[in-house]
């Protein structure tokens, strides 16, 4: 009976909603138990209460607004789509152009000035030495 009550508490009184694997047992119980039938009737009344909520009636203004969507969308496309249709793609093109320019810059500087690049590395090391001074080497050595 507890299992039947659990079934009703979730799915209500309509057997079509009951999980298939629990239907046979529930129907057998209904056939043999008056208490089960009372529980079912109680849940059926609650189902009817919820099902009795009237359907929402859309206002004429809402209906007109929604039916006008295709026309409005077409008009918007005609008015703005052709002139400004490229705008959404603009960031992508800007990104590509920047990447191309950056690639060109890096490519040309590293291809034609390898010595300068190495010198920069050396310079970095030198700066590091300058910042930490001889005391690090000296300290480690001691």
């Amino acid at each position: 009976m507890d299992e039947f009550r659990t079934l009703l508490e979730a799915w209500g009184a309509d057997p079509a909603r009951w999980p298939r694997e629990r239907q046979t047992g529930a129907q057998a119980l209904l056939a043999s138990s008056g208490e089960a039938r009372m529980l079912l009737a109680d849940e059926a009344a609650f189902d009817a209460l919820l099902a009795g909520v009237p359907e929402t009636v859309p206002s004429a203004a809402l209906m007109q607004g929604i039916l006008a969507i295709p026309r409005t969308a077409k008009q918007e496309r005609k008015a703005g789509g052709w002139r400004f249709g490229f705008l959404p793609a603009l960031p992508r093109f800007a990104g590509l152009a920047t990447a191309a320019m950056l690639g060109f810059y890096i490519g040309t500087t590293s291809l034609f000035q390898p010595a300068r690049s190495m010198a920069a590395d050396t310079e970095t090391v030198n700066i590091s030495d300058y910042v930490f001074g001889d005391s690090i080497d000296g300290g480690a050595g001691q």
Partner: protein
Amino acid sequence: MDSTRGAAPAGTADATALNILSDEALMQRVGGGDEPAYRILVARHLSRHLGFATRLLGDRAEGEEVMQEAFLKLWRGAANWQPRGARFTTWFYRVVLNLCIDRQRKRRGRQVPIEDAGDPVDQRQPADAGIHDRQMSRQIDGALAELPQRQREAVSLCYLQGLTNREAADVLQVNIKALESLLTRGRAALKQRLGHLRSELTGGTP
């Protein structure tokens, strides 16, 4: 042909021919810019999804805005829409749900208390709905609004929108076991809050 497009008989014939198509087939046509197919999808799904969005957000005006955004997404995305085994309904509920979640996040960011979001039910019922029905519906929506978000989504999809368990689980992107847990807790909380209405319905004690 174009000159007769707006005429009632031709339009009716178009609509009749299209009306027998599945949502998925209509969506393929919408992808090709077919406005009559779009109009049929609107007619089929606006009411149900508006109810869902309004219930999740607890605000009719926001629900309407979500539906405008959802159908705009539908129109713009139809050309690239691929069913991939999912039904149109599941996909579209997911679109609406995501838009609602976005709004709820923004709302939380603005620190607006739920009580300030307005009456959860306003002008949702047909004009001829009885006062008793309206009051009952208002109380149900009020009780739903108090549920934690995921429980509200699950209960709305299964018991008010009428989705199957599998469809609801797909929309919520959870497995059936997790859906069962959400429904059990949501249903229990609703029963507690709506006990007086149940007794009214059954004519007995809650």
